[in-house]
């Protein structure tokens, strides 16, 4: 697609966009030296505070900083309001969908989504069938990846309903910006984000098992060597809850306890940041050292709430993604406010024929892939890579979907050569409990390499502070 990307800061003809005017005005008075100095200051600070992530496959000293860009991503209030409505709508439909497939499966009976697509999915958990969870909420924390196309339209690229991460960077980036450039916050009315942990704790307490008056919430981590450990420790501290590992918990008579210096203490809600597969070695992977034997029994007895619920992966799988707009219509009888990225489902013959004929223009994604691995970006691929994918698609078409190569919007970013446009996306965090709450903004990720569309931190992505303007 040859459309030129949407520039978040500069309109095509009429110069700076309204929402960026005070910022650009301020920027014109800054020297490049000052920005460079502030960037270095931010790096030093992130190191000292230990805001790092672990890189898999590297040994000692494998903690790295996620590069932080000092130029914020600014969203005008009206655009955000619409996004917010669209996100809440989408997550409501996704929760309704998960509830439905683990109960009556009306949507399958109605033929809206092919049944085998759901029931044969590795992320479908038969253990959840017929189980009622508090409030019917499964995805308590959802990270919805949003991109803006060349027309300036927001579209959903991906839903993350298992253990989405990144919110700590959203919070730390704001803190850093306020520290580096306090004057900017006087000149712009930026909606605050730092109440996120409070809202999260409130939502988690709100989904405690029935009858628990003052629920004890814990955050379950895989431990200090997990790539997102900083975030786990940070959120637990900000919420004032215990950060536990599997070995700290045990189950007795279908009740979950944690081992404390004063004996066992009951746990009511587990905000888990480990995958389903590792939660309970008696039910899922028997080799898991991270989980808690018997946890599922306690869960099925409704003596503990697990957030996100087990089995949400069936709804954020790339093979299910194309059907989310249909879910919104089916469960909410509403039209989707934010559209998907156009997607070809390669298990369907006519979609497959089209895709195979246009491989060099398309992005091919493996439906179970994550983190930007296992995909083909047609325009950037060699002939050999394209042919390899052609064979793979022919062999297992149900494993792939295709999307147009999107011209992700760009935002000026401070790189070695000065300010230059780089592609960005946005991950807002949608919290569901008694209600649905979205802290304004989210995490803006930026592909730091020139021309790159891959924003994942594991592959050279950075982050920006995200501003939603209040007026």
């Amino acid at each position, binding site marked *: 697609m040859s459309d030129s990307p949407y520039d978040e800061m500069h309109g095509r003809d009429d110069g700076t966009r309204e929402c960026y005017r005070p910022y650009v005005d301020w920027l014109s008075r800054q020297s490049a030296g000052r920005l460079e100095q502030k960037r270095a200051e931010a790096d030093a600070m992130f*190191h000292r505070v230990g805001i790092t992530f672990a890189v898999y496959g590297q040994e000692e000293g494998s903690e790295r900083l996620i590069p932080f860009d000092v130029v914020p991503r600014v969203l005008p209030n009206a655009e955000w309001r619409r996004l917010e409505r669209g996100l809440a709508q989408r997550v409501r439909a996704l929760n309704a969908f998960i509830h439905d497939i683990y109960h009556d499966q009306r949507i399958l009976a109605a033929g809206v989504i092919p049944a085998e697509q759901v029931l044969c999915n590795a992320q479908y958990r038969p253990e959840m069938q017929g189980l009622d969870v508090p409030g019917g909420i499964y995805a308590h924390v959802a990270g919805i990846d949003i991109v803006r196309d060349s027309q300036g339209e927001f579209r959903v690229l991906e839903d993350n309903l298992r253990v989405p991460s990144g919110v700590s960077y959203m919070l730390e980036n704001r803190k850093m910006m306020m520290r580096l450039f306090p004057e900017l916050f006087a000149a712009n009315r930026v909606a605050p984000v730092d109440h996120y942990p409070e809202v999260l704790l409130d939502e988690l307490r709100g989904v405690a098992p029935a009858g628990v008056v003052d629920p004890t919430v814990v955050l379950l981590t895989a431990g200090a060597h997990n790539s997102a450990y900083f975030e786990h420790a940070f959120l637990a*501290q900000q919420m004032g809850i215990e950060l536990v590992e599997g070995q700290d918990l045990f189950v007795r008579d279908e009740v979950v306890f944690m081992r404390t*210096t004063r004996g066992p203490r009951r746990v009511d809600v587990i905000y888990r940041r480990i995958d389903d597969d590792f939660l309970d070695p008696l039910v899922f992977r028997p080799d898991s050292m991270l989980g808690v034997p018997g946890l599922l029994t306690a869960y099925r007895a409704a003596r503990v709430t697990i957030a996100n619920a087990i089995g949400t992966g069936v709804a954020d799988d790339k093979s299910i993604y194309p059907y989310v707009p249909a879910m919104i219509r089916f469960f909410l009888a509403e039209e989707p406010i934010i559209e998907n990225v156009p997607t070809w489902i390669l298990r369907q013959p006519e979609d497959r024929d089209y895709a195979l004929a246009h491989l060099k223009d398309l992005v091919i994604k493996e439906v179970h892939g994550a983190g930007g691995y296992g995909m083909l970006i047609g325009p950037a691929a060699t002939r050999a890579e394209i042919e390899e994918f052609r064979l793979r698609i022919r062999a297992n078409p149900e494993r792939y979907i295709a999307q147009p190569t999107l011209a992700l919007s760009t935002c000026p970013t401070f790189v070695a050569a000065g300010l230059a446009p780089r592609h960005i996306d946005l991950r807002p965090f949608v919290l569901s409990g008694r209600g649905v709450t979205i802290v304004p903004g989210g995490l803006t990720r930026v592909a730091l390499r020139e021309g790159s569309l891959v924003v994942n931190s594991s592959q050279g992505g950075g982050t920006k502070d995200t501003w939603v303007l209040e007026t």
Partner: protein
Amino acid sequence: MLSRTADHLYWMSRYIERAENLARLVDAHYRMSLLPHAPAILARSLRSTLAALQLEAAFGERHDKAEPRAVFEFLTLDSKHAGSILNCLRAARENARAVRGTLTSELWETLNSTWLEARVIGLHGAGEADIGRFVEWVKERSHLTRGVTIGTMLRDEAFHFSRIGTFLERADGGARILAAHREDLEPGAEAGGTTDPFEWSVLLRALSAFEVYRRRYREGITPLKVAELLILCADMPRSLLRCCRELHQNLRAVANEQSAETERRAGEIQATLHFTRMEDLIERGVTRFLEQFLAKMRDIGERIASDFLLPPTEA
């Protein structure tokens, strides 16, 4: 508090204190190596220090002879020796990282930047002249860590477990430093004239006790008086009595259903020390006393682990 959290806090403090103790030992010997007297005395002292730290075997695996330079390297920046200062600082930081949410951000940042800096020093290596500077820096970072702990931490269980680690390690380290000089502490040693007075004044300085000693004792520096100061003086922050008193108080603050016996034993140790006179120690034999004391500290350490840190898997 989670048992695992208490465990990390306890070890975090133990490792920082251990790094400081090692720094003090290296400091004493480094100063000694600058004095114009027999290298044999220094060599003997280094050997007995390695023995008191139970590091002879580990040292022997890496070096042939207890040359001062090799011992200093082994105790400070040797990244392959698990008990080096460098690795103690790493272990302190790893334990802190595992419970960073329980620490104040100031304390975490102090431990984190100590390690980051130590790693850089470790990569470049410290030259002969820098040994003194390095151990000085380690002491400063330990002082800072302790100050930040006392100045910012809530006086809750987290604080008490951290303090328990500090005082247990300090008592253990203090007793070992004295044990390394046991020959001078046996009856008749002074009369026998094997004692090197410089050695003891250097030791006092390394333990931040030189001025205190001068103020308290008007006579010259003698091993038994130094021992009295470092074992029985309740006002001396690094004395064994002081450590045991603090240990007992912090244990009382975290008492649980099964910890009564541990608390009683800690109380007994401090009460006994409180009512002991130096004459009694000399009569019983200072060396023997130190051996028994180290065994008691080991016992308390094991009891703390089973009472609080590693509760049985099925409660």
